[in-house]
């Protein structure tokens, strides 16, 4: 994929985008596996789907599928619909036709975080447990020391890592039950991403730090100095960099070679309004999208160390970003209920 950010067009006009106004905050967004649809998890219990092709007009709002707010959403790795989790304790499979099938119902708990793996497996953080749905079977892992604050699959999809108070627990989700592996670090871990090469697990902590464990040696490192909690982490497709939120510019820790110890992170691009709230590395190329707590949206290129503004600040924090599978479209949602699909093909 080619996106030439040096092209003056980026600075002259904003890229074409479709904006739909919803009447509720957006908690999460995702593209379907076939890339045809972008969907947004809304605070009114509905999942709003919009055609990825911005020339096609958006259909009417979908009726609510969850009792309260939809808190989490991923593309269905086993179909062309979506998987949603809500504060009604339900985990739903939403078909491409919008039909909802209940996968898990844990009344009284919240389904706050989801992960999907291309093998078709889905993982959901519900209370102190992680639920894994694979080949039509639901399995439960836990309980952990506290509520599971985030989770992610390993590269091959054979394990899941759960963040919680006191560290990270890694479970093997194959048919053979193996004891969990624990990676301890004091304090509360609030965000987690497993590196795209499987070698590292990174977490953001309650104390505004980042913690990273090297899986092979079980050694760990800590990066400090953030002014706020790092709640968004994103590894580049080649696992050479880890992008982090909570900075005014794109911030990438280098993980190639000897790793980031003793090195400053790479920081580049235009200083945005406020702090980055969400970062999303491009699925294939060297680009990164960043949404600020001011509503500003930027696209960065680590190769040229440049960034361009895709959307101006409007005071409503960006809450989610998702790249389409082909890497040419970006779905964006904010606290104010704006749903965007940006088309980056120039």
């Amino acid at each position, binding site marked *: 994929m080619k996106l030439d950010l040096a092209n003056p067009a980026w600075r002259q006009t904003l890229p074409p985008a479709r904006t739909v106004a919803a009447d509720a905050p957006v*908690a999460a967004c995702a593209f379907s596996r076939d890339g045809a649809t972008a969907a947004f998890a809304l605070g009114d219990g509905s999942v709003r789907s919009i055609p990825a092709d911005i020339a096609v007009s958006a259909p009417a709002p979908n009726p609510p599928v969850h009792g309260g*707010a939809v808190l989490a959403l991923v593309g269905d790795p086993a179909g062309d619909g979506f998987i949603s989790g809500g*504060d009604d304790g339900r985990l739903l499979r939403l078909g491409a036709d919008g039909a909802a099938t209940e996968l898990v119902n844990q009344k009284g708990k919240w389904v*706050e975080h989801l992960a999907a793996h291309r093998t078709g497996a889905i993982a959901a953080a519900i209370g102190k447990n992680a639920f894994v749905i694979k080949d039509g079977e639901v399995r439960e892992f836990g309980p952990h020391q506290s*509520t599971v604050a985030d989770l992610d699959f390993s590269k091959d999809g054979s394990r899941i890592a759960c963040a919680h*108070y006191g560290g990270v627990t890694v479970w093997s989700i194959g048919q053979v039950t193996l004891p969990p592996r624990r990676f301890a670090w004091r304090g*509360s871990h609030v965000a987690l991403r497993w590196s795209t090469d499987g070698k590292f697990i990174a977490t953001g*902590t*309650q104390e505004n730090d980042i913690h990273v464990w090297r899986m092979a040696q079980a050694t760990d490192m800590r990066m400090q100095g953030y002014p706020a909690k790092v709640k968004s982490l994103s590894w580049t497709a080649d696992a050479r960099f880890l992008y982090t939120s909570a900075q005014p510019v794109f911030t990438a820790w280098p993980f190639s070679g000897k790793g980031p110890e003793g090195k400053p992170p790479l920081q580049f691009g235009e200083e945005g309004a406020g702090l980055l709230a969400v970062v999303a590395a491009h699925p294939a190329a060297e680009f990164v999208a960043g949404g600020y707590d001011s509503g500003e949206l930027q696209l960065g290129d680590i190769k040229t160390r440049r960034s361009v503004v895709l959307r101006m600040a409007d005071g409503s924090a960006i809450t989610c970003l998702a790249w389409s599978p082909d890497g040419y479209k970006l779905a964006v949602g904010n606290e104010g209920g704006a749903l965007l699909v940006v088309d980056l093909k120039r």
Partner: protein
Amino acid sequence: MAQAQVPVTVLTGYLGAGKTTLLNRILSEQHGKKYAVIVNEFGELGIDNDLVVNADEEVFEMNNGCICCTVRGDLIRIIEGLMKRKDRFDGILVETTGLADPGPVAQTFFTDDEVKARTRLDAIVTVVDAKHFLGQLEQGDEAEEQVAFADVILLNKTDLVSADELKKVEDKIRSINPFARLHRTQKSQVELGAILDKGAFDLKRILEFEPDFLEHGHDHDHEEEVKSVAFSADRPVDPDKFQKWMGALLQLRGGDIFRSKGVLAIDGAPRRYVYQGVHMMMDSDWGSPWKESEKRSSKLVFIGRNLDGDNLKRGFEDCLK
């Protein structure tokens, strides 16, 4: 969608004191307001409200070298989650378990930036069982600490005790916490205005705190007990000395000092200096200006365990000009 900070009222009290009755009373009253209710998993009775969240009280130590710095991790998560809903509410009510230490709940609102941005702690309301309170003090530290942290105390079930017994309980409560507003109640019946929208943690409203209990803390008999000590002074306070003293004091003794509040006349400053703290955490600001005719005096109060009143008094007096 920028919105005003949602007020949070914390309801605490020993098992069976009447917290849940109070909670249901707040919710059933025709006030036209909408509340989100966060209850503990072991709630005693059913709660009648659309938006009830079951919390498992997850007390987390902050990994920042401050040992008494504990927060309620579940509250941070739940408040963040509630803000993702379309329906907005006028307030959040947090009911703690009967054996909960109110410290971590209060500290959550001082520590977490996002919680601070979205909500404000309005007041800690403690329901006390008039019949069983003195006995509960023997069972452990919880009943005492819940009173120590309170901004508002409901001395409940007064119909179950004699006038004599009631006086004994009230005296005991006052020896622990003389600055909370106390309401005698039966079946948790109280005007909602007495417990909601109190702004007890609002520095602008600290000036309202009543100094009529000053100079109480001189008994050395039961230092391990929770009590309050308060001082006043007519001479102006040296800001540098005060900051140094207070900083060192909270650093060293913050675990034992549950709450502290003060209004100070700083040497040369035209406005009042107000502060308040929960354990080691402190907020301070400049308050209203002194009037020409007004006598400039300073007041401060500590509530905690193992407080050495004389030592604290000397420390404070050393800060005076």
